[in-house]
């Protein structure tokens, strides 16, 4: 380190040791783990003490048993159902994201496009998804997974479009001037400034979109289609009063959603390690 650098008081922390980091991570998550385990224990205990009937609330042990028993076989094969639902959700995420990004580029580039598209985008976002789901099922075929994808896509496209538009347009004016002082073209400014600037906005939208796409897919499933999907398992097991299976399906949907979300979080750490949102997530 040079003398000049040292004199400025460089705020560069040394990289933390591996062991120290693992220790801090454990300590960070410990309270949540304790609350989780205690909560499950209490739940189990209360069900047994008060002999709560299973259709009101099954015990955690019963839900776990239902999950294991129905994992791969039987009337409600949970794993296969979750797979199909995830497939629909991912399909919807991809379609909704593509449409959202394309519209965002147009809207960010041309004011005319903004005026032409934005009212309809807002209107599309205002439609209650539950009202449009049966119509999409009719349009794209109730047994065709594409109908579920389109419902998920409708939910996904709006946050993606809004966030990417903001990312492309909310650049520092001085940064644009800097690029102009180098006689950079609009295309170069897009490539070197607007796109990297929009990346954190895009990933934030994707995190929201993962959850939304699962909601969209499951809502679509409620209105008919293949029976080996989470939405149908929930409806059918509930009407058969097998609430242990219903809860197992909900649990699996939640785990799928969380995993999906964590994939995007991991992607953030790889793609934008420099961004404040990622830096701030360091535990400790």
């Amino acid at each position, binding site marked *: *380190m*040079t003398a*000049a*650098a040292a*004199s*400025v*008081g*460089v*705020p*560069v922390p040394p990289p933390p040791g591996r062991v120290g980091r693992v220790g801090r991570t454990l300590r960070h998550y410990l309270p949540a783990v304790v609350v989780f385990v205690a909560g499950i224990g209490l739940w189990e205990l209360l069900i047994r003490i008060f002999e709560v009937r299973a259709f009101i609330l099954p015990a955690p042990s019963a839900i776990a048993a239902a999950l294991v028993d129905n994992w791969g076989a039987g009337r409600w094969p949970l794993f296969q159902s979750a797979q199909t639902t995830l497939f629909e959700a991912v399909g919807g995420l991809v379609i909704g994201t593509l449409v959202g990004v394309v519209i965002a580029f147009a809207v960010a580039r041309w004011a005319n496009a903004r005026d032409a598209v934005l009212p309809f985008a807002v209107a599309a976002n205002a439609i209650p998804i539950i009202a449009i789901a049966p119509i999409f099922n009719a349009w794209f075929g109730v047994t065709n997974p594409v109908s579920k994808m389109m419902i998920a896509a409708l939910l996904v496209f709006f946050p993606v479009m809004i966030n990417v538009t903001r990312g492309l347009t909310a650049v*520092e004016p*001085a*940064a644009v*001037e*800097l690029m*102009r*002082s*180098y*006689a*950079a073209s609009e295309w*170069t400014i897009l490539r*070197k*400034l607007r796109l*990297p600037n929009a*990346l954190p906005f895009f990933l934030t939208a994707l995190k929201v979109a993962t959850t939304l796409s699962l909601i969209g897919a499951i809502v679509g499933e409620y209105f008919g289609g293949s029976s080996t999907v989470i939405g149908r398992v929930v409806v059918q097991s509930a009407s058969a009063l097998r609430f242990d299976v219903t809860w197992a399906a909900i649990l699996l949907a939640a785990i799928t959603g969380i995993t999906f979300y964590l994939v995007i979080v991991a992607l953030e750490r790889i793609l*934008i390690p*420099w*961004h*404040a949102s990622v*830096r701030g997530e360091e535990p400790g």
Partner: protein
Amino acid sequence: MSDSTAAVVRVIGLDKQFGSRDGPVTTALTGIDLTIGRGEFVSLIGPSGCGKSTLLRLIGDLTSPTAGSVEVNGKPAHAARLGREYGMVFQAPVLFEWRSVEDNVKLPLELLDMSRSDRDERAREMLALVELSDFARHHPYQLSGGMQQRVAIARALALQPAILLMDEPFGALDEMTRERMNAEVLRIWQRTGTTVVFVTHSIPEAVFLSTRVVVMSARPGRITRIVDVPLPQPRNDETREDPGYFRVVTEVREALRADGGLGGEPPLVGSEERLAAEGGIG
């Protein structure tokens, strides 16, 4: 070398007005004439709203004049910008947070389609110049404000521009860091021989750095005086204690005050109109 070939900046009869067809028109600058020679360090100083930043942006072709012309290196400012003859430093460092320090310095070189090895070498040189070689792979958020501004200077100098335009580059820094940055800029200026136009509202900063200080008046912005700074080079901390330094600081301060910042009458420009008006009445 004759005086005309040595001029890097030639501003003639420059007017700049803001405002639209229906809105009121604000005259930001009027009747600006200014010639800056090669290797000069010229500060623009004046009260806020005097258009000093606007003048800098006009020289850099980031905005266009209402009347008059700006030539840089004998070309219209627009051609000079397309020829990438400018280095800009703003009040904020404006570093791209997704790029490492060295990649920020390489940004203008990428726009020039310079080969990768040349880019690497130039970035190394520039970071050595601002004494940040050890921080090449850091990201901007890991640097202090002063260091970030040094990266911005390295980036601005990477293209070896004909002229370096600095718009209150140290306005956001504390006084200590600012003085250190002033010394740093002088050192870089002497090593590179770059022509510098420097906007500031600090009188000591302007005098310490400059070969000439251009004093401007409030709206509409005009040049009221150009003060030569005959202090010897290289300048250092002792310069700040030199009686000659205080004399020039006083001279600039009085030029600013005479301009009417404290309610006095405009002494130079405008006296003709006033006489004409009085003549008209009488």
